[in-house]
């Protein structure tokens, strides 16, 4: 079977994000970009399934500007077999992303789509669930353990109260949480090899998908900052402050 893994190019998680002075968004120019960390976990899981001989091909897909091909190359260097870049000039919302993915699924016929549970830029946490709804495939979100038995998917989900065990049959949508695996680093020979792997480029209009925005961003601003606090000399002083100044205990 084939596995499709969408990967998003986002600001590197180590970079301090800065709001633009005109409040139109955050500064992306000259900022280090990287693959969304949850998507790295998704790629790793797809590769492990392939290495366990449950899949023949792993396809990495990214939707975004030309530079998103770097993100696809990263996935290829990790071990994905080929890439698809859906090139867009403006950033697009999860609803349109899910529509694009749906039409690619219909073309490529994968039996499994593994996605990160959310992107660390917009923090929406929607795409996997939306894709599942569009395809009418089962969804298992926030997965921390995944096992494939014949055509059955056994998974453990991280939920607010603890863990949940789920079962569904393929084809299916999985969104992954942090503790599913530790993504591998790409070796230098594999980075070189990735440059020769096939990378197809298409546009949303090739797929007949309308990517117009539904949410209008009126303003992006800094969160309120906290007043600097004080360093205390002892636990006694702390207990005193909590009781008599902050009055919280």
């Amino acid at each position, binding site marked *: 079977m084939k596995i499709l893994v969408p990967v998003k190019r986002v600001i590197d998680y180590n970079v301090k994000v800065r*709001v633009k002075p005109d409040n139109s968004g955050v500064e992306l120019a000259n900022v280090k970009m990287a693959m969304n960390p949850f998507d790295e976990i998704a790629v790793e899981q797809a590769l492990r399934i392939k290495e366990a001989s449950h899949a023949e091909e792993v396809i990495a897909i990214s939707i975004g500007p030309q530079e998103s091909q770097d993100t696809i190359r990263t996935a290829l260097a990790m071990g994905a077999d080929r890439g698809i870049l859906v090139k867009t000039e403006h950033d697009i919302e999860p609803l349109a992303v899910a529509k694009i993915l749906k039409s690619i699924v219909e073309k490529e016929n994968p039996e499994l789509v593994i996605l990160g549970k959310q992107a660390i830029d917009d*923090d929406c946490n929607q795409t996997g669930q939306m894709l*599942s709804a569009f395809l009418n495939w089962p969804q298992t*979100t926030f997965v921390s353990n995944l096992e494939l038995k014949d055509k059955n998917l056994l998974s453990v989900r991280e939920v607010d*109260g603890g863990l949940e065990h789920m*079962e569904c049959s393929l084809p299916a949508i999985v969104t992954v949480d942090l503790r599913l695996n530790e993504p591998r680093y790409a070796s230098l020979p594999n980075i070189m090899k990735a440059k020769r792997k096939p990378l197809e480029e298409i546009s949303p209009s090739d797929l007949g998908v309308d990517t117009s925005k*539904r949410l209008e961003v009126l303003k992006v601003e800094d969160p309120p900052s*906290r007043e600097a606090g004080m360093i205390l000399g002892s636990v006694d002083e702390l*207990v005193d402050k909590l009781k008599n100044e902050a009055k919280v205990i």
Partner: protein
Amino acid sequence: MSILIIAEHDNQNLSAATLNTVTAASDIGKEINVLVVGHNCSNVSKQCSQIPNVKSILEANSEEYKNFVAENVSKLIIDLSKDYSHILAPSSTTGKNIMPRVAALLDVMQISDIIKVVDDETFQRPIYAGNALSTVKSNDKIKIITVRSTAFEASENTGGSAEIKSINGSGDTDLSKFLKSELSSSERPELTSAKIVISGGRGMQDGSNFGMLEKVADKLGAAVGASRAAVDAGFVPNDYQVGQTGKVVAPNLYIAVGISGAIQHLAGMKDSKVIVAINKDEDAPIFQVADYGVVTDLFDAVPELDSKIN
């Protein structure tokens, strides 16, 4: 057109997050109805009917809703959606699982994790782990919204007298099968609604050392949390995690013990009213958000704190 709130519960008791969601709905300012979807959940409907400001309760009581499987619950919500201008759910793992499906099938863009209602079509939400706040206006015909519960006060839960109507389910989609859950049981308050939270990080060194924090928590009536580093190291289960990818908390008092203060952790607790940091590294970023910091070895400070509070 009115508002529908998807109640969060365990078939027995209504979760506190639903009350915060009612406040968000009140800020939008239309008639509020609550959907209680579950199995043998009439007790929850009764609790919801006590919430002032709620007009009516729709109860869908059926076996296929027992474990809140997203495919089944979203189908029901879509069947009900035509009567509403806004559908809201708490931004819990349940709400996050269900609501994007509803949005997709209605062909609208969900507004995730709102922290403020500007008007009935404009909302504020955090992006980049709360390092920026985005104000967005939805032009969609129906607004599908998840609500960050810590950003809204809880509404009252007594004094109301909403009518309870029983409605039919939409059937089992047979897409996903729930096998079992492993829920953590604790006598302590729930992390996201506790007034005081004490959390441990990598500095705790070992899961057994969380016993020290639990003793303090029990004296203060606090919940115990952890940083991602502590969860990844296997000190405590995943549901302890406070942070961007775990739980977002905003208690009156947050005590961070042996936590350095990575951005992803700060995103989950920086809206707490009073923050205390105990860490032996004076350069730890946690001190930049703390109201009170003590630079010391936690293995001395926590037992001392335990002995000095009563």
